[in-house]
């Protein structure tokens, strides 16, 4: 079965999630996985839907005021991950290229970033990334991150993600 990948971005306002969800429900699009957040006052939503075509979903979203939407068909992806879950924290003075440098180091060690958030508050830049890392790669990654952190003048920590089941 095909899925739709949809993005909705625009200035945040009350009721925007309701508007998006309603518009999609009206054309039979079923929200499966979705994530929504506010980035400096911008509403940002990405979601996967099933049950509707690209055209129907696009038309349904078109009347929404002030938002930019994209709709595309994607083939069902393998959600399985292999590797061990780790968390990387980076914080320091804001400068160009922190995310790029850290992400490149993670990728070079075979680590896949599965979740990422960054925050700029004042001059403090904070990056938290969750990564899937091949078994046994953490030590080398920690060393390379330390080198990259020193070059960028930021603090970097790598630690195993907590994942107890209760």
């Amino acid at each position, binding site marked *: 079965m095909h899925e739709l990948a949809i993005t909705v971005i625009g200035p945040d306002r009350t009721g925007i999630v309701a508007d998006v969800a309603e518009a999609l429900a009206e054309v039979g699009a079923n929200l499966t996985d979705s994530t929504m957040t506010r980035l400096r006052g911008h509403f940002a939503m990405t979601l996967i839907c099933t049950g509707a075509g690209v055209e129907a979903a696009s038309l349904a979203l078109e009347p929404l005021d002030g938002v930019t939407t994209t709709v595309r068909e994607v083939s069902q992806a393998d959600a399985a991950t292999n590797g061990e879950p780790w968390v990387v924290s980076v*914080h320091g*003075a804001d400068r160009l290229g922190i995310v790029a440098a850290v992400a490149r180091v993670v990728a070079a060690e075979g680590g896949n970033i599965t979740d990422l958030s960054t925050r700029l508050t004042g001059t403090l830049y904070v990056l*938290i990334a969750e990564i899937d890392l091949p078994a046994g790669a953490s030590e080398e990654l920690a060393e390379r991150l330390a080198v990259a952190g020193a070059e960028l003048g930021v603090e970097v920590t790598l630690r195993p993600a907590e994942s107890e089941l209760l």
Partner: protein
Amino acid sequence: MTEGRVRPVVTAPAAVLSTVGAEVDPTSPEVVQLAADLVATMRVSPGCVGLAAPQVGVGVQVFAVDVTGHPKAVTTHGAFVLCNAKIVEASRWKAGREGCMSVPDLTGDVKRAGRVMVEAVAPGTGEPVTLSTDAFEARALQHEIDHCAGKLFLDRVAGAHAIYQRRVYL
């Protein structure tokens, strides 16, 4: 009794916050003054339940804690200052939200031990102190001991979605 002076609190990114603090001679006059200053600064800072020397720009292992009256506190030891503190026992790990005067705009979910035993020395006398506590006081101790080791809560947050913009109510 040394009179404490309020010192300015430094915020991230400041190098001193990410530097491992040096051990101190708890009987030295500078450390006694610092201890009093930490308490004085903590007192004038609304909502502040702990303050470590690196937060006032001094890279040493000294911190003040006072969780008296905090709704999440169970065991409390009032206001106190410890030097060269180490956690010797930790158990009952639990996630909780915490903030920091040196990271004023963010909070984060951090897993901390709900029960700890800490060994330290007291400023002034230099006497050894062993302190067992739990709940919020245990969390505060771990947060401050982290400061003394050059760590912020940002270095321990649970995941990408475990940091939050602090709401400001004016």
